[in-house]
């Protein structure tokens, strides 16, 4: 069988018009047959080429030459110049963007997570070997300082500093891997634990060596059964190979680890609550200081690092801290994994260098919104973060710039919203999440959250008063100042940032009793457009309040005095004959 020497992938990336992929496919095949090249070159229709709205895109392998906006008339010269002579047509060429950079996800999807040899084959545990046999704990911390790695769990505290604080003399010390990922829509840690568990274990061993710990804990939520299964398998394999347990790799350093399951409380991602949970107590936070680095698990110095932070560490020691620090900005080094969800075409995990703009993530990597409408806002950082409006899409992403905008990088959740999303509703959703998850220990969080939620509910029901806006801000500030832990201190952020950027939208709800995105069903009024109505009667069937009157002969109308504005008729109508305004 003849093997092809070249491959042409092709795809029409214009979504607005009819798909011309097949036409171009046929034209290419015809032309190649005419020139007797069809045995040597294969043409393949792709489903996605990672480029959008640039006409017909073709990619030629080998060489990875990408041409965009290819016209019918270009086919002949592409074949003549590029296929036959191997020369590039610069007027058609687009550079592959390659905006993603994989450090944390370097092995995810390319190795078998259940096979330790696969991991060693890609350089796994070699960083550890270097640490154990060539470095002292102080040198390890020095290397971490060079790398500039900051915690990926949310707060962005420099990792080396955390380790240094735990360096003091103590008979027992602990390392904990925080895998209690709770933000709605965020699943970076799950993917790392499932796709590359050994990198997290290796990171933990290095951390333990640096601070002198002899015992490690993985705290993973029970909702991640596959992640737990894979990490347990990985721990067992590592132990069998002598990479965990007594005298690791024949050195005089020993560490054993254990998995603890979290029962799904959001607050247990907070380090002091997490420690309480591991100790078998109720998962509630305690005031800091003393920080866990000084007095943590069982009262002993403890370092708690997030899954993603630990997964970075083997890379740092394999390639060197300086190499790691080459990527990123002055204050934020390395990469960050984001879980991009919401109204976006390609949702999923993206790993990008720090300092990339939101626009690049949303439009270049994720292909823009799924609806084709412009982005209205981006929510980052989950319930502790804020909403960034579209005019700030060009802000480089790093810890400090997002903080200035009233949001945070957080653990890496990113939710894209378009014009159909109501920001008051979004704020209500996140606040509702925090109210539900508040442990109830301190009153600012317990009472403040509930009161704010009540106000937001009132606003979305059309019963808001203009004074409510000030009240929201006042409660929010009180919560930020007086709450015991991060959950309460940040719970008001989504509300504060939406009030800051979308005050007009709040006012529209309060003063005009209208929801501009038509999301708040309580503010809408429903009417049947008689000219579109097919008299099917579905709306009447779905109306639980008996507000739809009429019959299949006469047609239907909605009685406004009886309507409870649930929106069921609107959802049910197949002919879009019901308007919501």
């Amino acid at each position, binding site marked *: 069988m003849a*093997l*092809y020497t070249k*491959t042409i*992938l092709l795809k029409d990336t214009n979504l607005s018009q009819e798909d011309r992929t097949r036409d171009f*496919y046929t034209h290419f095949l015809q032309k190649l047959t005419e020139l007797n090249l069809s045995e040597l070159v*294969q043409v*393949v*229709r*792709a*489903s*996605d*080429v*990672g480029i959008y709205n640039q006409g017909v895109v073709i*990619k030629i*392998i*080998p060489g*990875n030459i*990408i041409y965009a906006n290819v016209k019918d008339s270009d086919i002949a010269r592409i074949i003549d110049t590029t296929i036959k002579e191997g020369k590039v047509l610069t007027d058609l060429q687009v*550079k*592959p*963007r*390659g*905006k*993603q950079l994989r450090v944390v996800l370097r092995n*995810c*999807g*390319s*190795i*078998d*997570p259940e096979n330790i*040899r*696969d991991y*060693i*084959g890609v350089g*796994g*545990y*070699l960083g550890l*070997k270097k640490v154990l*046999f060539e470095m002292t704990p102080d040198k390890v911390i020095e290397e971490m300082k060079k790398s500039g790695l900051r915690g990926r769990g949310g707060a962005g505290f420099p990792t080396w500093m955390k380790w240094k604080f735990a360096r003091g003399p103590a008979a027992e010390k602990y390392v904990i891997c925080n895998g209690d990922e709770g933000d709605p829509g965020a*699943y970076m840690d*799950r*993917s790392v634990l*499932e*796709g*590359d568990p050994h990198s997290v274990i290796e990171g933990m061993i290095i951390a333990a060596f640096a601070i002198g710990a002899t015992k490690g804990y993985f705290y993973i939520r029970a909702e*991640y059964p*596959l*992640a737990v299964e894979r990490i347990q398998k990985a721990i067992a394999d590592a132990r*069998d*190979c*002598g990479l965990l347990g007594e005298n690791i*790799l*024949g050195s005089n350093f020993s560490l054993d680890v254990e998995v603890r399951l979290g029962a799904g409380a959001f607050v247990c991602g907070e380090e002091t609550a997490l420690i309480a949970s591991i100790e078998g107590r109720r998962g509630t936070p305690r005031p800091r200081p003393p920080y866990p680095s000084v007095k943590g698990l069982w009262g002993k110095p403890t370092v708690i690092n997030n899954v993603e932070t630990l997964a970075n560490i083997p890379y740092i020691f394999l390639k060197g801290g300086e190499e790691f620090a080459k990527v990123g900005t002055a204050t934020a080094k390395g990469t960050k994994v984001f879980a991009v969800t919401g109204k976006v*075409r*390609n*949702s*999923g*995990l*993206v*790993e990008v260098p720090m300092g990339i703009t939101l626009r690049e993530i949303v439009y270049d990597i994720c292909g823009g919104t799924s609806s084709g409408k412009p982005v209205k806002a981006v929510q980052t950082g989950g319930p502790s973060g804020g909403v960034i409006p579209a005019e700030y899409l060009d802000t480089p992403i790093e810890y400090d710039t997002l903080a200035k905008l009233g949001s945070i990088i957080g653990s890496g959740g990113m939710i894209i919203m378009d014009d159909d999303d109501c920001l008051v509703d979004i704020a209500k959703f996140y606040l509702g999440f925090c109210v539900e998850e508040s442990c109830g220990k301190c009153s600012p969080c317990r009472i403040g959250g509930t009161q704010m939620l009540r106000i937001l509910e009132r606003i979305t029901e059309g019963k808001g008063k203009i004074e409510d806006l000030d009240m929201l801000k006042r409660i929010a500030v009180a919560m930020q100042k007086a709450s015991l832990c991060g959950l309460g201190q940040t719970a008001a952020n989504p509300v504060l940032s939406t009030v800051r950027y979308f005050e007009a939208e709040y006012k529209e709800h309060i003063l005009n009793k209208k929801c501009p995105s038509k999301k708040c069903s309580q503010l809408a009024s429903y009417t049947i457009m008689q000219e579109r109505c097919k008299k099917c009667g579905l709306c009447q069937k779905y109306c639980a309040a008996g507000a739809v009157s009429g019959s299949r002969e006469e047609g239907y109308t909605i009685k406004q005095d009886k309507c409870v504005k649930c929106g069921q008729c609107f959802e049910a109508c197949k002919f879009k004959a019901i308007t919501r305004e």
Partner: protein
Amino acid sequence: MDKLTPQELDKINSGAKGSASDWIKVGMSTCGIAAGADEVHQTLKDETKKRNVAIDIKKCGCVGMCYAEPLVEVKIDGLPPVTYGRVTKEIAMKIVEKHVCGKMLVNDYIFELEG
């Protein structure tokens, strides 16, 4: 497995390089499994067995393209490695028939991202 020494660690590492044999990788994280990767993996195994093809079928983690799960990456000697997305049982059978056995890429299901 016996306890490893640092030298053995290096040996495994260097031994893994340059292995150019053919393989299929199936994304089998929670996202992939939820989208049906289990069935795809089983189909690939059954089909290759039926056709007497010896090929390494690996279960891997998530590469991040969650919208296109289940993902199947195929590397066959002489062809560029490609990733197929939204793979179903039927597409998995096509992959074995055309790509693995016929040494031709399968139309319409390739997801080529990141240049």
